[in-house]
């Protein structure tokens, strides 16, 4: 453990009577890093995060915050946004923020949070009656109210429309710029790619890969993907020399030699007007590692 390690997790296990939700996890999260925990639903992400947050008691294993077991210091310095949180009824957005601010010995200036999380437009509305995107921003604001050293975001953009999601990403970027350490779980690979400096991919309660997104992609792939529309007849691809997949409404050909691949396609007279060449993404890596589709 180095001086800049904020969270250290060793051999963390959580067994429920019928499932092994988390089956031995080690993690180190360094200060100022946005760490992404990825995995399909049911992989054990939320259980892992809630053990690190001190909400769920581990079956075994240790979680240290700045070298110390979780305690009062951690609660005062952590900001937490759960996957779903009910708030108290009949409270305005501002009242909700002020209530939570009162729980901490030091809190961020309320007006600064309002500005940071763009809550200005609905401050006096009933907190139950705001839109999905506004609600997530309010929950983020509550998590930020104590100006936390470490911020936990558990699937913060699940269920949001693309625009609200992008707004939320901008917000997280602004928080990163304040040098906060962030632990983010998500099953959106694009989100992880954009926001995270380091990721760990979980499945069946274990970490199956970790590293920076770029390094993980380099390690696992040295090819690119050629995408063609799916309406091309199968006989065109008879005896095709390269690996070919029909997925997601497309025909995907992966290759490390684009020239050869295009040559083979031209030989078979495949129309190339809609040909698209893209690099490998985290989603490809995810599917390759977990062998299953992402489930939303």
């Amino acid at each position, binding site marked *: 453990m180095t001086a800049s390690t904020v969270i250290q997790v060793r051999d963390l296990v959580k067994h429920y009577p019928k499932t092994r939700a988390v089956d031995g996890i080690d993690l180190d999260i360094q200060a100022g890093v946005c760490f992404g925990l990825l995995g399909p639903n049911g992989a054990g992400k939320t259980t892992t995060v809630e053990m690190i947050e001190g909400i769920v008691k581990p079956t075994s294993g240790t979680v240290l915050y700045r070298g110390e077991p979780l305690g009062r210091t951690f*609660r005062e310095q952590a900001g*937490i946004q*759960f996957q*779903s949180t009910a*708030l108290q009824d009949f409270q305005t957005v501002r009242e909700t923020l002020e209530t939570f601010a009162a*729980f*901490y010995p030091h809190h961020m200036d309320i007006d600064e949070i309002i500005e940071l999380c763009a809550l200005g437009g609905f401050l006096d509305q009933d907190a139950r009656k705001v839109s999905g995107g506004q609600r997530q921003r309010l929950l983020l604001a*509550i998590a930020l109210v104590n100006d936390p050293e470490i911020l936990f975001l558990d699937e913060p953009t699940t269920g949001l429309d693309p625009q609200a999601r992008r707004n939320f990403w901008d917000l997280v970027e602004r928080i990163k710029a304040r040098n906060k350490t962030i632990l983010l779980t998500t099953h959106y690979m694009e989100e992880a790619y954009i926001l995270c400096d380091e990721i760990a991919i979980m499945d069946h309660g274990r970490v199956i890969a970790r590293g920076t997104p770029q390094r993980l992609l380099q390690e696992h792939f040295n090819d690119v993907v050629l995408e063609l529309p799916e309406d091309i007849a199968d006989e065109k691809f008879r005896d095709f020399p390269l690996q070919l997949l029909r997925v997601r409404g497309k025909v995907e050909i992966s290759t490390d030699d684009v020239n050869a691949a295009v040559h083979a396609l031209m030989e078979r007279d495949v129309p190339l007007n809609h040909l698209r060449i893209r690099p490998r993404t985290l989603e490809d890596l995810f599917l390759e590692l977990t062998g299953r589709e992402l489930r939303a």
Partner: protein
Amino acid sequence: MKKFLAIFNARNREFLRDRSTLGWNIILPIVLVIGLGFIFSDTNKSMFKVAVLHDAATLAAENDPFLDTRYVQFFEVSDRDEYFTRVSRHQVDMLLDLTVTPARYWINPTSPKGYVLEKMLPDGSYERGVVEGEQVRYVDWLVPGILGMNLMFSCLFGVGYVIVRYRKSGFLKRLNATPLGALEFLAAQVASRLWLIMAITIAVFIGTDLFLDYMMNGSYLLLLLVTTLGAVSMISLGLLIAARVSSEELAGGLLNLASWPMMILSGVWFSLEGTPAIVQWLSKLFPLTYMLDGARKIMIDGAGIGGVWLELAMLTVMSVVFLALGAVMFRWKGE
């Protein structure tokens, strides 16, 4: 119809698969049936209570034909003055003196039961007596009961049910992720409900007092103390019930289990005078009993702090015990 059945079945599954609630819904009626059966096990359930002064060896119909009346509970007493007071306070409906000729009877003219008993007396041979001292109207006797019952429901459900709802919705889990301690949270819940219900109770008492002019022979300050302690004890009981439950239906059942016996057995509606010993013993377990006894002693008897020390002590002990147990057992998350 298909839609109706879909919802009907879904709700049935929800209910049947919630084991704790299901178990509760089976236990509650059994407890109620056994309990009520026990209370009303006397087949000649008396609707009226008559205290009788007499010289004969036994209390039998040959002494006086009125003693044969059904649904009237006759019991022998020896102290006339004491029972004057009880008649005037609606604890006994009539006092009958067979030691004199003609026989004399006393009722409280404001008592509906006294009126009915008077009409039931055989013609001619009885002389009407006047209860001496201040006569207590039924409403004077009833008002602590009604306000006390309202306070009990508000304290139990307003704290117990709400905490269970917070737990179920995940709001408690969110609070648990902050430095807020369980004691701070619980104390705030107690304080909030306490001042709200006290404000409401005081306002209703003062408002209705303007029209009904309740009898008040004691100190308002002492009455406030007994009522406050009663409210604290019942809020604490609500906390204890809600300490771990995360099903709203189970919480509702448990709260009903606590509130219904209190409503029936704490002397809200009728005096427990002359009820079986087990009922009187059971009533001693409920905080509402002590609160109502204390309030009536202060308002009607004009008791001072020395006259209600037992009530004050019991309410204090119950508050401390319930609160301590509730705080120790409290969990932010459901089981």
